[in-house]
């Protein structure tokens, strides 16, 4: 690892002036593309989730010629669809003291003072437009009897600012973006490419000018040229194997861009979500999230006595430890996710955990059902209770849910400037794929907000600025750079198929997941991280010597798809550990056991680590070069987080 000081390669392009007017002023200062000229530009958008779908639709509405790609069989199935609880917006409809400034403050504090102030302020500012936009699309948000929009509370906030559509908010917002996208498809402004996986970025004269994708139906390697690339391909917590992500969620697009020069920022900031259904078996393919919104009405507890085997209903109040309410009286069950997850781990490690494995805590709705009635609870969380019952075979209306933390979200991602452009000119990165807004911990109901803010309201402006400021020569896929990239992808495919080893792709992925969860999970130490790096390197060598990839290249071949993804996880996992090892402090989702307060809270080292760590690929994840973007806090006073 080579360590650079403050890097000249990183210009965050944060506009000057007071934070309240930065975005407004910036929108005036940046260049525009005239309406008649927009159709002359081709924009490649990869991904169709909240960020990609909204970006492709909005760019199409503006008149750009958009090529939109997704790995699923339909853009409506991107994993944003699975977000449950809600979306934050500083509307202050509840008259409870909310404001753009408060949402900005809560998000910076929730991120443990490791996010860029200017980006977060813009996010809070745009949050109100998102709700207007989605309502106008016909998104059926929850309503009050008088017809106005309803709100609920989420972790890390003392106001009710979360808008929701039952427990399916992500689905409804995504279907809203999808409907706008399909309107543009019908209008001929967006061309949709389903079942395509981006496998490389094509650079011409130092600018991102195209992509190479595999057609997942027939295996053909295709390439597409354009004037800019907008990457909206989500996060990378599937590196843990078991996570709340979909089975096709993967890190390949961002990782291949990283290998083409895009800096990877803060890879160690991964979020372990506190309320997931615990692992039950070894053949399990994923973990299922139970929305954080459940913590509005559910109370988290464990028995006061170790190994108490009584049924939860038989354990009287005096023998229950509502540990979140006890340790954090001000926020109670609604502490931020990183804190709730660590608290659950702590009680389970001490032997108070419940369930067959001892790695679970109760989330109990008894009091809520008594207070509100089962009908109200069903209206709020019915689909989540149903989902739980399907999976566990137990009815949460009558006995408490069992939950345990699981990998969920990546705050880290490709480095971007204020315009959401990476250090690679022309390569823009939106949504979970970038690093920009959540610091070291994301608050609940903020991912949907960020994806849609980036897609509907940021990229339509900033992409125009890029296109208007750069004189790009026309390129086509017959350019040598495309041929070289296609040849590289084909060579890797052939290599994977030629190894013909004995160990399955899934087996490698599962073993990597064990290494990551045990050593780079909720609690990290110098030893565990050093061990992880060495074990991952060994596993990577074994992979390239012994992986068993069945079938042929020119076919619908899931095994081959996953082999490519796991090859990338085996590199990304190492970089994640390298970043975690270098960051000698605890902050948000990154908890180093060596750095904690006497009562077990994360202990930051602001003097040394108030920066974004942006890693440059140098042929091997272990040799990545570090670039630092210093973070300055001009508006919010940096302090130790307290939710007590």
């Amino acid at each position, binding site marked *: 690892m080579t360590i650079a000081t403050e890097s000249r390669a990183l210009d965050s392009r944060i506009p000057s002036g007071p934070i309240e007017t930065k975005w407004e002023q910036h929108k005036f200062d940046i260049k525009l593309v005239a309406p008649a000229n927009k159709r002359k530009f081709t924009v490649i958008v990869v991904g169709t989730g909240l960020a990609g779908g909204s970006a492709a639709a909005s760019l199409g509405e503006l008149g750009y010629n958009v090529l939109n790609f997704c790995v699923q069989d339909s853009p409506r199935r991107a994993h944003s669809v699975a977000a449950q609880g809600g979306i934050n917006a500083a509307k202050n409809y509840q008259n409870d003291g909310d404001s753009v400034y408060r949402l900005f403050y809560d998000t910076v504090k929730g991120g443990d003072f490791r996010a860029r102030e200017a980006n977060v302020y813009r996010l809070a500012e745009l949050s109100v437009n998102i709700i207007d936009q989605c309502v106008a*699309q016909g998104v059926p948000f929850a309503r009050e009897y008088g017809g106005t929009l309803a709100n609920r509370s989420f972790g890390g906030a003392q106001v009710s600012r979360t808008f929701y559509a039952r427990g399916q908010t992500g689905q*409804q917002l995504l279907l809203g973006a999808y409907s706008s996208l399909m309107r543009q498809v019908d209008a001929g402004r967006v061309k949709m490419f389903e079942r395509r996986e981006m496998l490389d970025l094509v650079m011409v004269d130092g600018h991102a000018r195209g992509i190479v994708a595999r057609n997942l139906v027939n295996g053909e390697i295709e390439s597409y040229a354009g004037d800019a690339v907008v990457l909206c391909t989500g996060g990378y917590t599937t590196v843990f194997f078991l996570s709340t992500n979909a089975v096709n969620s993967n890190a390949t697009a961002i990782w291949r861009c990283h290998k083409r020069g895009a800096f990877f920022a803060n890879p160690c900031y991964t979020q372990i979500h506190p309320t997931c259904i615990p692992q039950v078996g070894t053949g399990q393919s994923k973990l299922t999230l139970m929305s954080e919104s459940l913590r509005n009405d559910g109370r988290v507890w464990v028995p006061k006595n170790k190994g108490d085997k009584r049924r939860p209903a038989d354990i009287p109040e005096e023998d229950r430890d509502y540990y979140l309410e006890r340790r954090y009286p001000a926020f109670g069950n609604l502490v931020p996710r990183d804190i709730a997850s660590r608290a659950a781990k702590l009680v389970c490690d001490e032997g108070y955990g419940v369930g067959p494995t001892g790695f679970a805590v109760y989330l109990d709705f008894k009091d809520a059902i008594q207070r509100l009635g089962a009908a109200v609870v069903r209206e709020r969380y019915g689909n989540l209770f149903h989902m739980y019952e399907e999976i566990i075979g137990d009815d949460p209306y009558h006995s408490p849910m069992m939950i345990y933390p699981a990998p969920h979200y990546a705050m880290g991602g490709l480095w971007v400037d204020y315009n959401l452009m990476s250090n690679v000119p022309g390569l823009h990165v939106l949504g979970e794929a970038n690093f920009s807004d959540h610091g070291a911990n994301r608050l609940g109901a903020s991912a949907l907000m960020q994806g849609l803010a980036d897609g509907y309201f940021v990229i339509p402006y900033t992409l125009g600025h890029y296109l208007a400021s750069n004189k790009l020569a026309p390129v086509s896929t017959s350019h040598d750079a495309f041929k070289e990239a296609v040849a590289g992808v084909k060579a890797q495919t052939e290599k994977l198929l030629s190894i013909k080893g004995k160990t399955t792709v899934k087996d490698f992925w599962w073993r990597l997941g064990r290494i990551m969860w045990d050593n780079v999970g909720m609690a990290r130490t110098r030893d565990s991280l050093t061990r992880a790096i060495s074990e991952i390197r060994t596993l990577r060598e074994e992979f390239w010597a012994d992986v*068993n990839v069945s*079938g042929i290249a020119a076919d619908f071949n899931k095994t081959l798809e996953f082999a490519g993804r796991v090859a990338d996880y085996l590199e990304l996992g190492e970089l994640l550990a390298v970043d975690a090892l270098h960051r000698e402090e605890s902050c948000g989702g990154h908890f180093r056991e060596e750095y904690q307060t006497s009562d077990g809270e994360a202990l930051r080292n602001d003097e040394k680590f108030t920066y974004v760590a942006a890693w440059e690929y140098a042929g091997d994840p272990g040799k990545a070069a570090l670039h630092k973007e210093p973070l300055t806090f001009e508006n919010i006073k940096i302090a130790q987080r307290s939710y007590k």
Partner: protein
Amino acid sequence: MSKTISLILDVWRQPGPGKPGRLVRYTVNGVSPEMSFLEMLDQLNEDLTKKGEDPVAFDSDCREGICGTCGLVINGVAHGPKAACTTCELRMRAFRDGDIITIEPFRAKAFPIVKDLVVDRGAFDRIIASGGYVSMNAGSAPEANSLPVGKDMAERAMDAAVCIGCGACVAACPNASASLFVSAKISQLAHLPQGQPERWRRVKNMVERMDLEGFGDCSNHGECEAVCPKEISIMNIAQMRRDWVKAVLQD
């Protein structure tokens, strides 16, 4: 850990579109009851890969019943024996040791087979593209609370909006009709003020597109409602028909 079971699977294998397919018998051992149906198929595929055979192609993504990617006909029923449940949510505790399970794709003329159990449901996207939206551009929306929507209407719109676009309704229908899918979108927007300006044009365009894609007509069997994992009511089809008649009469 609970006791494991063994199962006999008759799985539809078809190398590609338009090629002949057939049911192939496999045995899968060591299935635990808490496994999902797709995890059981994952296990079969691990076994096949180790034996050097081609794994069974099937689609899935979120594996929690919300993305609509997965969809198998299990013993003749789309999404299998449990009501209000997608294939990925189905757990193996619904089966007994030694059961023979037939697994087929969602069959319909408008859903051509891609490989084995994977079908092409692109027709659904084309139907939405024909009118399943409100025509408004980003940036032009009025203040969200300026247009009140009664709670009852919002809930009814939501009851229709929960459609995941899986296509089970088509697979279950003797006519392979897409009426439940199409009517869910029409009904969602018909219940909301935002959907009114384009209401009549929308229903005509979407119904026309549905016919063009080769889906059959609805003859009130109700099979779609019975298999719908989100329990969408066929009352939405009645709504669609009413709106369609009104729209046609307006011409």
